């Protein structure tokens, strides 16, 4: 499964409730998973990559997201 990091404000605008997602220390970014992208009707695109581009998010696999969370993201 892929995970996507995007700005909290962008996530809010797309209908995500930041309170239900993993947030960065300052709360300016959230982590969503690929199913969140697939099942959101506001996000166009055929592939996860297209959808991530639309939300201005970056895609991570599980190891990469764990490394990210250990740092100061």
């Amino acid at each position, binding site marked *: *499964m892929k*995970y996507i990091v995007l700005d909290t404000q962008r996530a809010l605008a797309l209908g995500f409730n930041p*309170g*239900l*997602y*993993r947030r960065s220390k300052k709360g300016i970014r959230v*982590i*969503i*998973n690929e*199913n*969140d992208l697939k*099942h959101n009707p506001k996000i166009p695109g055929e592939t996860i990559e297209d959808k991530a581009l639309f939300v201005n998010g970056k895609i991570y696999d*599980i190891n990469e*997201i*764990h490394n990210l*969370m250990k740092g100061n993201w």
Partner: protein
Amino acid sequence: MEITKKRLRKDFEPITLAMSLVCISDNSPVRQVYNAALLEIEPERVASPCTVLPHVVAATSDNSWVNGRANSLLASMVWKVDGVDITGIPAWIGLYSIETTGENKGALIISRNLYPSEHFALSFEAVITDLRFGINVPVKIDGIALSCADKSEDDYSISIGEDEIIKYDPFKDNLLLYEYKVAHGIIAGSTELRAAAKDLNCFDRTIALDVYQGKNIVTEGVTMKLFKVTTDIGGNAVLTETTGTDYEIVSKSTSAINIDLRLITKAEYLIIIYVNSSGVGSAIVANEVARKQFSINRLYPKFIGEVVSGAGILPGDRETSNRVAITKENSIVPYPECVLKIDWFSDAYDAITGIKTNTHNEGQDVVIELEKAGMGDNHLDNWLDIYFRATQKGAFEVAVDESAEVFTDENDEILIFN
């Protein structure tokens, strides 16, 4: 002057609570999937936590309670995992948090991942302070489980060798007719005749069970429980595991369920298959992997009945006899008293009331004493109307004495009647 005070109080209705545990993280559900190909659990909860909310709504019939959605009023909140306070479980330390403010107050945010053999039942307890009465109203909710499915394994399913709605028509039951004839001495019983009477419509119903994992039939490592499904006053389904006193269940196993349909009017059953996933002996944890519901309904089909003989009565006759003919779907029903309660009546002339009705015997045949029935010799009273009422007999019941002890025969078989 002595003054007495009288205290007046507002009368309030108590609150009623609607409570449930709901997973509000749509794409991080209570059931994870283990992807064996990637060696990953999906979704991984450190990155995508699962949030379970105790959804509490309060209301009163007198509208004196304004906080419909009552989560913000929760206090003394305790989450339990398999009945144990989560704060006291070392394996959960640092892997959860509880929302303490706002409309999602009480929500359990879970960062713990489960593996395919793991299964946890969550429950929630708290109180809501009702300032109108100065009391704490308890909140107690259970009924959500965390689990993990192995994506490399196929799902289990159950196939039964019957329709999910089984309809029993006693008129079509040749075995019932055979048993009736033997019991009434009409024929001598034999193993061959009994076997010949058994068909798809008989009361002795065997429901074949096949448990599949993917496309393969599973015969080992699974157990089966059979439940009766009823409804409580609130309209909620209640499951009660069948026991030895559910006499309609003759036998049950993971390969077949044998039911005596004579004992059922209407019933719903649920088959649940379990797989033993971990532990040994009494510590074995059995996980539910599949369930299948079926129902049984006794049919009450239409039939037509008529008195067979319309022949006149000779002056010297003292009695008359007659018989009922029952037809169903254009076919004569043999020995109708096997499935029908047939009561005979006659009407004769009565000098005072005009009509005198007599009740005669029950059964397919009737014999009437003419003088007793009121038949006379003049033009006013030399007639008799003969008729019957036929109703389909209901389900059989187990014969018990006044102490609810079950009657059995010399072979220890229970006795039933209808």
